C-alpha cells in the first residue's frame, strides 16, 4: 500500500511534524546548546587540577571556586535540557492531538459498508499506535540534531588544542556508524534466519488464554501449558541467537568510545611527561589542557550513543507514520455519509421516491442499478430479494448514509443532498441488522436524552419483559456488544426507541434475521404497532412472515 504513496515514511513524518517544526528545531538547538556547556565545565576542572599540579602555568582556580563553577554550569545545562524537553513534549502533544483528531473526524464520516479499516484497527491506530509519535518528537529529534552538530563542534574545540586528539576522535567517530550498519545488517539476516516475529510470544499466550474454556473441557490445561513452556523456551533460544549478533552493534559503539578515550588519555599522558612533542601546534601541552582534552573525549561519543538509543523510536514512528498515511489516503478515497451527522429540524415529509439510483454496495464493488420506487406516508413496504442484491445498500442510501453514484432521492419536495441530509435524517428512525450500543443506560438508548412517554413506547413495542429481566432495569448499561440482551431483544429495544421518537419513517434492515419464530413474531408485532401509530415503514427482508405483514413489497431481484 505504501509503495503507491508518493511520500516516503520519512517525508510523511516530516509533514505531520511540519506545523510544529519551529518548536522541534528550537528544542533541538537548546539540547545542542546544553551539550556545548560541557567544554566550559571541562575547562574549569582542567584549570583546578592544572593549578594543583603546576601552579602558575595556567590561570589559577581554587578547588572550591572551581567546584562551584562546575555545579553552576551544570545547573544551566539542566535548565536548558528542561526547556528543550518541554518544547519537544509540547510539540509532540500538538502533533499527536492533530493526527488523532483528524483521523477520528474523518473515519467517523465514512459511509456504511465503506470503511477503509475495521473500527478496531482504526481505534488502535488512533489510541496506542499514534502515541509512538511522542518519543520520536521528544527523544529522537533532539538526539539527531545533537549527533549532527555536537561531535563536530567538539572536534573543532579539541583541534584548537591538539590536532592529534582531533585526529583520534575523527578516526574513531565515523567508524562507528559504518560498523554499526554492518552489524545491523547481520542482525537483520540473523533474525530472518531465526524467523522471529515480533510479538510471537504474546500470540502464543493469547491463543491459549482465549481457548482456556476449550482446554478445560478437553482436559488439556496441563498439556497446553507444557507446549507453551516448550515453545517459549524455543523462542527464547532463537531470540538470544539474534541478540548475540544485534548486541555487537552497541558493543562497537562502546568499544570505539572506550578506545578513543584510552588513546586520548595515553597520548595526553605521554605528551605531559615529555615523551611526545607533536600535535599541540608547537606549544607544550599544559596539565590543564590535558585534563580538558580527557574530559572532552567521552562526551564526543555521547551524542552517538543517544542517537543509537533513540533509533528504535524513529523506527516505530516511521512505521506508524506510513500506517497513518495509508489509512488517511484510504479513508479519503472511501465515500462519506451525506451531511455532518448533527441534529437538524425535520423536513415536511410527503411521498418518498427514488429514481435512477446506482449504488456501490462496498468499497471496491461495481455499482448496482436499483429499480425506482415510491412510498406514500403511512405505508408499510418490504424490500425483498436474495442476499447481496442491494437491500441494505438501498436503505443506507435512503438514510443519506451512502452517497449514490447517480440518481435522486426525494421526500415530498425536498431532495436528499449534503445540505439537507441532517434535516432529512431528523425525520428517520433506523433499525440496523446488528445493533451496536454505546456504553449508555437502556433509558439513554431509548430516549436519546429527549422528553417523551417511555412507558407507552415500551408497552407499544411489548418490551417491558426485557427490562424486567435485567438486573438494573432501565438503568442497565449495555456496553458495546449489548451485553445482557440477545440480538432479538436488542432489536425490540430499538423498536421501542422508534415508538418513543415517533419519527415519521422507520428504515429496518432484516429485523427478523437469525431469530427463532417466537422472537421474530414479537419483532413483527412491534413493527406492525409502529405502522398502526402512523409511521411509514420500509423494511428490507426475505422473511415471508415479515413480508406478509407489510402492505406491499418491492422486489429488487432481476435488475442488474
Amino acid at each position, binding site marked *: 500500500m505504501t509503495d503507491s504513496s508518493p511520500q516516503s515514511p520519512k517525508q510523511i513524518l516530516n509533514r505531520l511534524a511540519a506545523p510544529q517544526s519551529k518548536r522541534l528545531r528550537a528544542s533541538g538547538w537548546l539540547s545542542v546548546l546544553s551539550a556545548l556547556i560541557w567544554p566550559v565545565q571541562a575547562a574549569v576542572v582542567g584549570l583546578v587540577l592544572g593549578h594543583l599540579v603546576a601552579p602558575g602555568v595556567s590561570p589559577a582556580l581554587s578547588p572550591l571556586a572551581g567546584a562551584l563553577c562546575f555545579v553552576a554550569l551544570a545547573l544551566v545545562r539542566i535548565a536548558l535540557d528542561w526547556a528543550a524537553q518541554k518544547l519537544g513534549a509540547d510539540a509532540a502533544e500538538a502533533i499527536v492531538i492533530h493526527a488523532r483528531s483528524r483521523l477520528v473526524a474523518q473515519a467517523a464520516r465514512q459511509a456504511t459498508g465503506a470503511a477503509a479499516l475495521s473500527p478496531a484497527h482504526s481505534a488502535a491506530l488512533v*489510541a496506542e499506535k499514534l502515541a509512538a509519535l511522542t518519543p520520536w518528537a521528544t527523544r529522537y529529534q533532539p538526539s539527531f540534531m545533537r549527533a549532527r552538530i555536537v561531535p563536530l563542534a567538539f572536534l573543532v574545540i579539541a583541534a584548537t588544542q591538539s590536532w592529534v586528539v582531533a585526529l583520534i576522535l575523527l578516526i574513531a567517530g565515523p567508524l562507528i556508524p559504518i560498523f554499526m550498519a554492518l552489524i545491523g545488517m547481520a542482525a537483520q539476516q540473523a533474525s530472518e534466519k531465526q524467523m522471529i516475529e515480533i510479538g510471537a510470544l504474546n500470540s502464543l499466550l493469547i491463543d491459549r488464554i482465549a481457548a482456556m474454556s476449550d482446554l478445560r473441557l478437553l482436559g488439556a490445561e496441563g498439556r497446553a501449558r507444557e507446549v507453551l513452556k516448550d515453545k517459549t523456551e524455543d523462542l527464547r533460544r532463537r531470540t538470544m541467537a539474534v541478540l548475540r549478533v544485534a548486541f555487537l552493534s552497541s558493543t562497537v559503539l562502546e568499544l570505539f568510545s572506550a578506545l578513543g578515550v584510552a588513546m586520548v588519555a595515553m597520548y595526553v599522558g605521554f605528551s605531559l611527561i615529555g615523551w611526545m612533542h607533536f600535535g599541540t601546534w608547537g606549544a607544550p601541552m599544559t596539565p590543564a589542557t590535558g585534563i580538558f582534552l580527557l574530559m572532552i573525549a567521552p562526551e564526543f561519543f555521547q551524542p552517538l550513543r543517544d542517537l543509537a538509543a533513540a533509533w528504535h523510536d524513529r523506527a516505530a514512528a516511521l512505521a506508524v507514520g506510513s500506517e497513518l498515511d495509508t489509512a488517511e489516503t484510504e479513508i479519503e478515497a472511501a465515500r462519506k455519509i451525506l451531511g455532518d451527522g448533527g441534529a437538524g429540524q425535520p423536513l415536511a415529509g410527503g411521498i418518498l421516491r427514488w429514481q435512477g439510483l446506482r449504488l456501490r454496495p462496498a468499497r471496491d464493488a461495481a455499482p448496482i442499478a436499483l429499480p425506482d420506487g415510491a412510498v406514500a406516508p403511512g405505508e408499510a413496504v418490504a424490500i425483498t430479494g436474495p442476499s447481496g442484491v442491494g437491500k441494505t445498500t438501498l436503505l443506507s442510501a435512503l438514510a443519506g448514509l451512502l452517497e449514490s453514484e447517480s440518481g435522486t432521492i426525494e421526500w415530498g419536495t425536498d431532495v436528499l443532498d449534503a445540505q439537507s441530509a441532517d434535516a432529512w435524517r431528523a425525520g428517520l428512525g433506523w433499525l440496523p441488522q446488528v*445493533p451496536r450500543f454505546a456504553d449508555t443506560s437502556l433509558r439513554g438508548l431509548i430516549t436519546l436524552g429527549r422528553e417523551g412517554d417511555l412507558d407507552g413506547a415500551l408497552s407499544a413495542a411489548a418490551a417491558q419483559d426485557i427490562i424486567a429481566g435485567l438486573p438494573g432495569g432501565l438503568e442497565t448499561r449495555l456496553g458495546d456488544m449489548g451485553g445482557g440482551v440477545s440480538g432479538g431483544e436488542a432489536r425490540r429495544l430499538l423498536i421501542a426507541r422508534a415508538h418513543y421518537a415517533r419519527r415519521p419513517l422507520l428504515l429496518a434492515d432484516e429485523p427478523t434475521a437469525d431469530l427463532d419464530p417466537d422472537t421474530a413474531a414479537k419483532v413483527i408485532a412491534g413493527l406492525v404497532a409502529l405502522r398502526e401509530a402512523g409511521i411509514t415503514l420500509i423494511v428490507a427482508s426475505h422473511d415471508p412472515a415479515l413480508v406478509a405483514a407489510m402492505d406491499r413489497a418491492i422486489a429488487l431481484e432481476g435488475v442488474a
Partner: protein
Amino acid sequence: MSVLLGLAWRLIVQQKWAFSRGLILSFIVLAMGAALLGLSGWLVTAAGAAGITGIALNIFEPSAGVRGLALGRAAGRYGERLLTHDATLRALADLRLSLMDGVARRPHEEQARLRGAEALNRMTSDVDALDGLLLRLIVPFLAGGMAQLAALLMLWWLESLPVGLSVFAIYLIGGGGGLIWVARAARHQARAAETALQAIRTRTLELLRGRADLAVSGQLQSEINRALEEVTAEARARRTLEALDRRIGAVIGLTTALAAGAALAIAGQMAASGQITPARAAIGFFVALALAESVMLLRRGMAEIGRMQEAGARVVELARTPERPIAPTQAHPVADAPLLRVRDLSFTRPGASGPVFAELNFELHRGETLFLTGPSGAGKSTALAVLAGLLPTSEGTCSVLGETLAHWPETDLRRHLTMVPQRSQLIGGSVAENLALAVPAGELLSQKAAEAALRAVSLDRVLAARGGFEARLNEGGSGLSGGQSKRLALARAALRNPDILLLDEPTEGLDAATARATLEGLRALLPEAGFVIVSHRSPDRDFADREIALTRRCPAQHRAKNTSRRKNT
C-alpha cells in the same frame, strides 16, 4: 512499589542463576567504567606532575591498564546485555506461564470475559510493560548500588573517608531517594494516562461502530466531539507524565554534578594542603563523574515505573488466582445409570433476582441424542455450561453416570464428558497440534483415530488439500472458514471418545447438507455416546431423538414445559 518488589522477587527466585550472573556482570561493567575514567584522570594528572617535576613515572603499566579496562569494559558490556536479556526472557516466560495458570483457575464466566479482545490486549501490554522490571529497574538499581559501595571503599582507601562518603551520600540521596519519590508520584499519573488512552480507544471504537446509528439519530457530531475531548484529556494526563520525566532528568543531572563537584572541592582542598597528591585528587573527581552511569541506566526504568506498577498489580492479581475447589470425594460411577440424570435443575447468577433457567428435567441414555430448544436468551448455552460442570448448579440435581456432578474430580469428569462451546477456539499451529490437545497427557495422537475424526466431520478432504495434519493455522486458528473451524473443534472433541458430548450450535456456518453429514458422522463415530445439542436450526432438530424445551426466567409464569416427545426412530 511493594507490588513490583514482590513480583521482582518472585521472578528472581525462579531464575536465580540467570539473574545473578547478569547482575554481577552489570556491576563489573560499572566498576570498570569508573576505574577507566579514574585511572585515566590519575594518569594524565600524574604525568603532568612528573613532566613538571621531572620525577620518573612508570607510565606503561597504567596506560596498559587503561587499554585493558577499555577493551574489558566493552566486552563486559556485551556479556552483560546478553545475560540480563536472557534472564529477562526467562523471567517473562515464567510470568506468562503463571498468567496462564491464573486464568485457568478463574471461574468459567470470567474466562469468557478475559478472552475479549480488550482484555487480551491489556494482558499482553501488561507483560510487555514488565519486561523493563528486571532489565531497567532491578538490575541497574542493585548493580548501581554495588558500584557505589565499591567506589566508597576505593575512595576511602585512595583519598579519604570524607570524599568517599560525600560522593556516596549524594548518589544515595539523589538516586535512591529520587527513585522512591518517583515511584510514589508515578503510579497515580501513569494510571491516569493509561485510563485516558483506553478511553480514547473505547470511545473511538464505539463511535466508528455505531456511526450509522449515530448519524441517523443526529448524534454523530456530538459523539465525534466527545471522542476529541478524550484526546485532549489524554494529552493532559500525558503532560504530567512528561513533566515527571523531566524532573527525573533534572534530579539525575543535579546528583551527578553535585557528586563530582563535591569530590573536586574536597579532594582538591586536600591536594592543595598537601595531604594527597593532585593525581589522587583527580581520581575522586573522575570516579564520581563516571558513577553517573549508574543512575543514568535507571532513568528509563524510572520513567516506566508507574506503568510497571499498574501492569504488575493486574498481572499479580491474575497469577494469584486461588486453586479451583477440589471435589470432596472420589467419583463412583454406577454401571447401569443413565449418562445424565437431571432433576429440577436451575441456575441463578449471583445477585440476580431470577434464575437464568429453571426446572430442567431429563435423562440421557447411551446412544441417545437430545435436542434442547428455547427462544434466544432462554439460557440454553448456560444450561450446557452447567451440565458440563463449568458453572455450579443453583438448585436441583444433576448426576453423571449415577454420580453427582459436583462430586466428580475435574480430570475424571473430563474423561467422560466434553463439550464444544458455541464459540469454540482453536490455537495457532498445525492441525495435528490442535487435535493433540484432546489426547490425555503423556499419550501420543493416534494417526488412525485422528483421521477417523476428521473424516467423521467431512474435513479430511478439505484439509488434505492444505497439507493434512501439517496444515498451519494462524493465531486463534484463523485461516479456516467459520464452518471448518467448527468442524475441527468437533473432531477434536470426538477424539476424547466421551460418553457425553454437549454441542452448542454445532452446525453454525455449515450448509444443510454438510450439517447433516457432520452430525451423522459424529454419531457413527461415537455410537454409544449421548449427545445434547443446542441449536436454532431445524435440520439439527430432525437429527435428534428427543426434544426438551427450556423457557426463560420467571418460572412462575412459564413453567419449563418438558414436552418430551419421543420420535419414532
